[in-house]
Structures are given as structure tokens and as C-alpha cells.
């Protein structure tokens, strides 16, 4: 008894998500360039980049874990994507709830860290350190925002969140959840690795941090991972705060809206240092998060 429809949906969704993820990356670069009054690369540039990287004749490796890291990261991103209800496509989302997806979205980080650590490069080590500290810092407001949503709607299931929002209006129309959304959006900036929290890669300081050693197909896998992750995270945002979507176009519009907020914030602010970021996250977002949580109790 094989559910062919589900299998086709999964395959189709993976292809669509990867492609759109690359386009999102392209939009990000293009929009950033336009804000800075540059011409910017074409929107499909990340796809070309990735194909070029895949076409390299030889990659170097620092050992098994160095290879395994990016694979694990991409695998986990794909797994996370499969548990998010994407428009009409439920995929596996009835089988895992918000907490599971929130955790699955964090695993790719571990994969990247694993790979980065197994090379002897000090830049990657600094990147790993920064990545984990950002995670520690953002975890509390992130958790509070999610808790506010769960408490208000009274369910952990993403599917039910979507149908409840379609029946009673989007989460952000509720004042308490609007506060939670603001908190989540600040955290979102760090999740996407954009300014002011692009401490992890910080191209000007530590040459892309964890990614510094990667080239060739390893880098291509990491690019793909970033694309899938970008798609999954924006979809996650849309599902919990913007009422999900009934078709892919609606979802796409919401995802791009979310993405543009992130891009605009990113192009205005300079980078925090890591201890500033920690202090920031433990101050305003946490206070707002506590307010949101108490309002929804």
C-alpha cells in the first residue's frame, strides 16, 4: 500500500522549494543591491553559482565528518520542510507539531557546525562559537513567541493553527500575537543570518565563518541547504503568523513579504558584536515576549 500521491507531492514540493529558495536568495541579493544603488546580479544568479560549484572537477575534504556535515544539514532541512503544511500540500505535517518543526529547523545548524569544526580553520571555529552563542541568545525570545502562539490557539499542530487562523483571522490581528510576531521577526533575522545578526558568517571579519573551508560540491550542497532552509523558514513564519495559505501563490506572496521585511531590516542596520546581540536579545525581545505570553494566558 504505497501512497503514490504523497510521494509525488513530496518530490514535487522538494523541487519547487529548492527552486524557490534559490530565487529567494536571488531576490535577497538583488533587493539589497538596489537599496545600495548597485545594479546587482540577476535573480537566478544563485542557481548559476550552485551549478558552477557542482561542476568543479575536484573538491577537497578534511575527513569523514567534513563531508558528513553538509549532507546532514541538507538532509535535516529537507526533513524540516516535509513537516510544514505548505498551502494545500499537507505532506507529513499531520505527524509532527510545532515543537518538532522548531527543533528540526535547528538541526541544520548542527550539521554545518560539525563540518566546520572538523577542519582546522580558526575562522570556522570562531564562526561556530558565534553561531552557537547567537542561538543561545535568541532561544529565549524565540521560545516565548512560539509559546504565545500555542497558548492563544490552544494547539501545537501546525495544520490546526492554519485552519484556526483561516476561521478566526490571522495571528497578527490579535494584539498579543502581534507583539509575539515582532519578537519572532527579530529572532527571524538571526535565523536567516542577516544583519544585524549576521555575526555567524560576518564576511568582512571571519570570511563567512563556518563556510570558509567549503568549496566545490560541498559548497553547492550548503547553498542548496540554505535555499531549502530559507523556503522552510519563511513558510514556517507564514504558517504561524500569517494564516498559512490555501494555494502556493498565496504562500509565495506571504513568504516574499516576510523576506522583504527581513531584507529591509538587514540593509539598514550594521552588525552587532556577539555580546551586544546576547544582551539585546535578553532585553527588549524577551520583555516583549513575556508581555505577549502573559497576555495570551
Amino acid at each position, binding site marked *: 500500500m504505497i501512497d503514490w500521491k504523497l510521494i509525488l507531492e*513530496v518530490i514535487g514540493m522538494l523541487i519547487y522549494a529548492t527552486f524557490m529558495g534559490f530565487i529567494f536568495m536571488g531576490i535577497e541579493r538583488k533587493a539589497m543591491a538596489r537599496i545600495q544603488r548597485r545594479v546587482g546580479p540577476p535573480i537566478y544568479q544563485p542557481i548559476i553559482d550552485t551549478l558552477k560549484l*557542482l561542476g*568543479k572537477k575536484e*573538491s*577537497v*575534504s*578534511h*575527513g569523514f*565528518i567534513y*563531508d558528513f556535515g*553538509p*549532507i*546532514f*544539514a*541538507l*538532509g*535535516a532541512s*529537507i526533513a524540516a520542510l516535509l513537516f510544514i503544511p505548505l498551502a494545500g500540500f499537507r505532506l507529513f505535517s*499531520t*505527524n509532527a507539531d510545532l515543537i*518538532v518543526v522548531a*527543533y528540526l529547523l535547528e*538541526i541544520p545548524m*548542527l550539521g554545518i*557546525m560539525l563540518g566546520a*569544526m*572538523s*577542519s*582546522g*580553520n*580558526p575562522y570556522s*571555529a*570562531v564562526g561556530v*562559537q558565534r553561531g*552557537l*552563542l547567537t*542561538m*543561545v541568545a535568541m532561544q*529565549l525570545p*524565540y*521560545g*516565548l513567541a512560539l*509559546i*504565545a502562539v500555542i*497558548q492563544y490557539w490552544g*494547539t*501545537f*499542530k501546525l495544520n490546526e493553527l492554519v485552519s484556526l487562523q483561516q476561521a478566526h483571522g490571522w495571528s497578527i490581528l490579535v494584539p498579543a500575537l502581534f507583539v509575539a510576531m515582532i519578537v519572532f521577526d527579530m529572532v527571524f533575522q538571526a535565523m536567516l543570518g542577516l544583519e544585524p545578526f549576521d555575526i555567524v558568517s560576518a564576511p568582512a571579519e571571519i570570511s563567512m565563518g563556518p563556510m*570558509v573551508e567549503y568549496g*566545490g*560540491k560541498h559548497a553547492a*550542497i550548503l547553498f*542548496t*541547504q540554505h535555499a531549502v532552509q530559507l523556503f522552510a523558514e519563511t513558510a514556517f513564519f507564514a504558517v504561524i503568523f500569517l494564516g498559512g495559505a490555501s494555494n502556493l501563490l498565496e504562500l509565495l506572496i506571504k513568504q516574499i513579504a516576510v523576506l522583504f521585511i527581513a531584507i529591509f531590516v538587514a540593509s539598514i542596520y550594521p552588525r552587532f*558584536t556577539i*555580546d551586544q546581540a546576547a*544582551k539585546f536579545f*535578553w532585553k527588549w525581545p524577551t520583555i516583549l515576549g513575556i508581555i505577549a*505570553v502573559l497576555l*495570551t494566558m
Partner: protein
Amino acid sequence: MINELLIIIFAPLIAGVIVWALDIKGVREAIGLIGAAIPLAYLAKLYSTVLNEAVNYSVTVSGFTLQFQLNSMSWYFAAVASLVGLAMALGMASTSKSSYDWLFALMSYTGVLGVFLSQDFVGFFLLWEMMTFASFMMVIRRNKHESLKYFVLSVIGAYAMLIAIGILYAKTGALDFATIRQALYIDASLGAISTAETALIFGLFLTAFGVKAGAVPLHVWAPGAYSETDQSYTTFFSGALSKAGTYGFLLIYILMGYKLYAALGTFHGHLTFAYIIAWIGAITVVVAGFLAVLQEDIRKLFAYSSVSQVGYILLAFGLGSSLGFAGGLFHVLSHAVFKGLFWLVTAAIILQTGKTQFKDMGGLAEKMPFTFAMGLIAVLSLAGIPPMAGFASKWLIYEAAIQAHMPLVAGAIFLGSGIAFAYVVRFLYAVWFGQRPSDLEDVKEAPLPLLIGMALLAVPNLLFGVAPGIVTKYLNRMLGGEIIGGDYYRLVTPTGTYNALLVAIALIIGLVIAGLVYLYGAKVRKIKVTNTYQSGNPVTEEFNLSIRKNFYRPLAEALDFWLKYSWDRFYERLAGITEDFADSLRQSFYNGNVQSYSWYLAIVLLILALWGVL
């Protein structure tokens, strides 16, 4: 035929004594292993019996009746302890050459099993003290100062428990759990025991069990004691012995839950006493977690991490809902298996390298691949990566905490798991990856018994991760009722669902896709770890560029305000003040002047005369 329960409890102790008396290489390990395996075997045999009815046994010793009972709850705790106990024995077969270690390790094993199986306070207290004494003896052999800390706090805990038992005995006239429970249940409506007295008993028990569980602020003994002993033994120390503390918290619920509810009432819709426990747990999770992140010693890191993880269990029990109990009990199991595994890995590292500081290690993954794989499983489980046992239990605690409407407590879990992620990756990086110091070039894989011990603990991490239903089905039976629905692979709570098998499959699908991209990609050329991008600034191999010391320095900077305060230093200062005070008393009273001594005598006599004694 000797009773099975007595065999379960005392087999390790007897084996320990034999081992100690014989002390022959080879025989020592064999007998120790058999002694450690017997409880597990008997518990496995009694599994189906326990599910239907409790097994009872009682002995009368000089007027006191000691009652032992193997019910579904004590079976669970005892099974976890004996699994860890067997792994400990396997580890000790490699790491410990001393019969002294074997004797006291097995003695504390007996103590722990006895605590779980006792049904009255006489046996409970005696075996509790045996467990404390044996573990204290393990620590004192290596470090006097740390053992003294452990000793003082344990004594405080023991006195607190003794006083609490005394009050309960005075009020109810009974020492066995069933009668006390009944008496307190009836008293909840009568109110013969006043609120203040109930609160006092609660506070005393909280102290007694909090010390053993390592709850903040009574955790200060744990980092020292966990570090300064044979690391294989720490597997048991932190994996099972700390569970005795959490078991004590459950005992509070069982014995006096209703009375406490009647006496202390509710606070914003939560049971007041449970709310206290939940916050103790939440604070423990966060404080110990942050301290773990900042440690520079592998043993200290895991010691603080143990404290932090036991905090999760207290937190879950403090939620007071049956889902909370289920989550906490599941975490008892998963903490025991992943932290036990961590300590065995630590034992292997220390045995093979002789180093304990992160700054002296690095690049060991190539030298000890199997140990590394085991360490990675433990890391994934502790960090709560689905589908691992650590995730299943944490997931239940999340669900329970948010459903119980304790959002700030749930926030503490989020923060705590982020922190856990940070410190386990620190361990991964510093020990396994990066440039290898030149003196670690000839490190070898850990010895076989130790590896078997690791595998023994790694299997449950995977098994109960992919099939968490095995555990939750048992917990449903234990707690009486369908608390967590679903089947072997699927957990269903009223508001959430988690299909561990499907998550595992999705991960595998993802890994296969990524793996195919990798396999069909270009050729791979392997290069040295040190051959890296250095911005056109090549570095020779003499420089070790791996960051091993002060890895999380920015965090310490962000936390500098909070790090100024330390319970450790507070206690040290308290001890110092007490010492100074006692010293000044001694100097001013015993000043060597005969006249003042005669004055003291006169004053004392006067007081006694006024009192009417003379």
C-alpha cells in the same frame, strides 16, 4: 529460596564485598560484572509480573519491619538504575584497578536499588545513607576538599530528612508509606497538622531530595563530586544516583500531595507546592546550563550539564499534570542513558589520554572513531535532536509545560535546550576536532569492556528515540490511564503529535537525497586538517590554531553581571564567616585566664540556680 527482591537489592553489595575480599585481577571484574547484572536480569524476569500486581516482601529486624515492594514505579526506576549500573560495571572493568572502587561503587548500587524498592522510611533512610556513604567514599579517595563539600551538604540533607520523618512519625505514628499516605490524606480534611507544620515538612523534604538531585542552590557539591571520582562510576553517580533525588520528589507527591494541596492551596491556578518545585527546576536548568557552557574541564562541563538536565525532571514533576509526570519519568530514562553514555565516553577519553582539560585535547575523532560515534549519539540525544530518546522526553515536557499554562517555565526549557546545544558542541569541537596536539599522536581506541558499556547505553538512546511508545505505554500503565496516546512510534497528546519513526524516515530521505548529490558530485581529494584557508597567510604546524581555551568568552562577557554572584563562593564565604566566628569565640572564651574560667563556672551555676535545676 531467598526472596527475589532481596536478591535484586543486595546482589551488588555481596558481589562488592567478595570482590573486595578476594581482590584478584580478572576474578574481580568477573564477579563485579555478575553482581551488577543480576538485578537487571531479575528485573527483566519480573517485568510481566509487575505490570499486573506489585511484588511485596518484608523482613523484621529488631522491632522494625522493613517493607520492600516492587511496583510499576519502583520497577521503572530500578530498571533504569540497573541498566546504568551494568554499564558502569563494564566501564569499571576497564578503568578501575582497585577493589576499593568496586566495593563502594557496588555498595552505592545496592543503596540506590534499596531506595527505590523501600516502602517504609526506616529502610528508605538506611539505604539512602548507604548510597550517600558509598558515593562519599568514592570521592574522598581522590579529593578531600570536594568530598567534604559533598559530605556537608549530604549531612544537611540527611538531617532534614530525619527531622521530617520524625515529625511525620510523631503526627501519624507510622513509618511505612501506605499508612502515612492514608493518614495524611485523611488529615487533609481534618487539618490536625497545621499549615506551618506541613510547610515545614515539605521544606525539609525539599532540602533532603534537592541536595541529592542537585537542585540550585544545593547543587554546589555536584561538579566537584562528579569530577573527582572514577569516571565510569560517575556514569552511575550522575545517571542513577541523582535519580534517587527525583524519586524523592515523586514520593513527596505520593505521600503528601493531597495534604500539601489542602494546606498550601493554589497560586494562580497552580498547586503552590508544585509551582515551587517547577521553578526550582527551571532555575536549575538555566543556571547550571550557563555554568556548564563556561567550563574548561570536560568533567566539570558534564557535571553541570547533569545538574541542568535533572532540573528538567524536577520542572516536569513540578507541572503537576499527569503529562508532566510522564515527561519527567521519560526524561529520567533518557537522561540516564545519554548522560551515562557521556560519562563512559569521558572515562574512555581520560583513560586513553590522561587529560581532562579542553586545552590539552583535540583531533581525537580519527584516533578513537567508535568512542566518537558513541559521543555523537549522546550529543544528539542530549541536544534533543529528533529522533533520539532525549528529544522524545523533552517534547513531552514542552507539551506538558505549555499545556499547564506555565509559559515562563516553558521559556526556561527553550533557553536551557539552546544552552545544551552550545555546551555539547563545545565538547565536540574541543575533544574530537581540529588540530591534534603532538602528544596525542599515539592515542588508541578505548578497551573493549568500555566500548560494550557504551554500546549498551547507546542502543536505548536510539531505540526509545525511534519507538518512544515502548516507554510511554509503560508510563501510561504506571500512572493509570491513557495519558499519551498513539502507538509504538507515535506519541499523541491532546494538543500535539510526534511521529518519531516518520521523522526518522524523513531525515533518512533527506540524507539520501543529499548523499546522492554528494556521491554524483566531483572527486574528493583528502587534505590535512591544518591545510586551510588563512587569507594568504600560511601558518606552520607549530601553531595550534584551534580555539580550546575560553571558547565562549563573549558569553562570559555578556553575563559578567550575573557571574559576579556565585553560590559556590557564597557557601565558601559562609563557611569562612562561621569559621572566623567560631575562632573569635574560642579566642575570647578560652583565653587561658583561670579567673575568667571561674567566672564562667559561677555564671553557669547562677543560671542553673535561677532556672531551678539546682
